[in-house]
């Protein structure tokens, strides 16, 4: 076990904070923030894995096309896709939260579940 992977450890810690919020906080908005943080943690992890010390961003400059010059472009592309996906999920969750608040006047998911369970179907 070494401590060279500080970025990755931070990323996993962030993932953990978000994951705990997502699972344990009853407030829907906090759950959404937790989900966003979970995703941020994963993206940080991925981008950190793509980094190579001493190389620059993968944009061809001055015609140099050597592997030794640029960092790995794949993680950046994947994270880009991932960020879009998490914006989409966040928007859907926020819309759901808004509707639920309109119906039940609370953001507490447990309470909402309780109230919904009492409705006749």
């Amino acid at each position, binding site marked *: 076990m070494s401590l060279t992977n500080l970025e990755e450890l931070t990323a996993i810690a962030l993932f953990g904070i978000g994951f705990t919020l997502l699972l344990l906080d009853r407030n829907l908005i906090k759950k959404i*923030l937790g989900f966003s943080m979970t995703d941020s943690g994963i993206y940080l992890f991925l981008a950190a894995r793509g980094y190579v010390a001493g190389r620059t961003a993968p944009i061809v400059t001055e015609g140099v096309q050597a592997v030794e010059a640029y960092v790995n472009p794949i993680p950046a592309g994947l994270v880009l896709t991932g960020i879009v996906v998490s914006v989409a999920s966040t928007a859907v969750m926020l819309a759901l939260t808004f509707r639920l608040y309109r119906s039940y006047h609370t953001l507490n998911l447990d309470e909402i579940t309780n109230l919904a369970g009492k409705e006749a179907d």
Partner: protein
Amino acid sequence: MQPLMILMLILILACGLCVALTRNLLVAAVVFMAQSLAMSVVWILLQSPDLAITQAAVGAGIDSLLLFVTLRRIHAVDAAAQQEEGQAAPEEGGALHGENP
């Protein structure tokens, strides 16, 4: 390892903990926005300028905007303003807090 990187990583974690621990949703949203900005600095340090632009536009821009407009539609923002003015928060202010009273 650059000192700036370590600083940003600590900032990100601190923001994460703050979001987790605060009960005021408005504070949580603002801190989350700050975290996104710190994250985009990290992207620059990790040599991914594409991600930095996107993260800044999304995390500090659209995500936060949607969050704020939702919070306002569920009355949380104005309740916070009222609280600061020292008035008793209206009933809907319950939405402001992580846990209902």
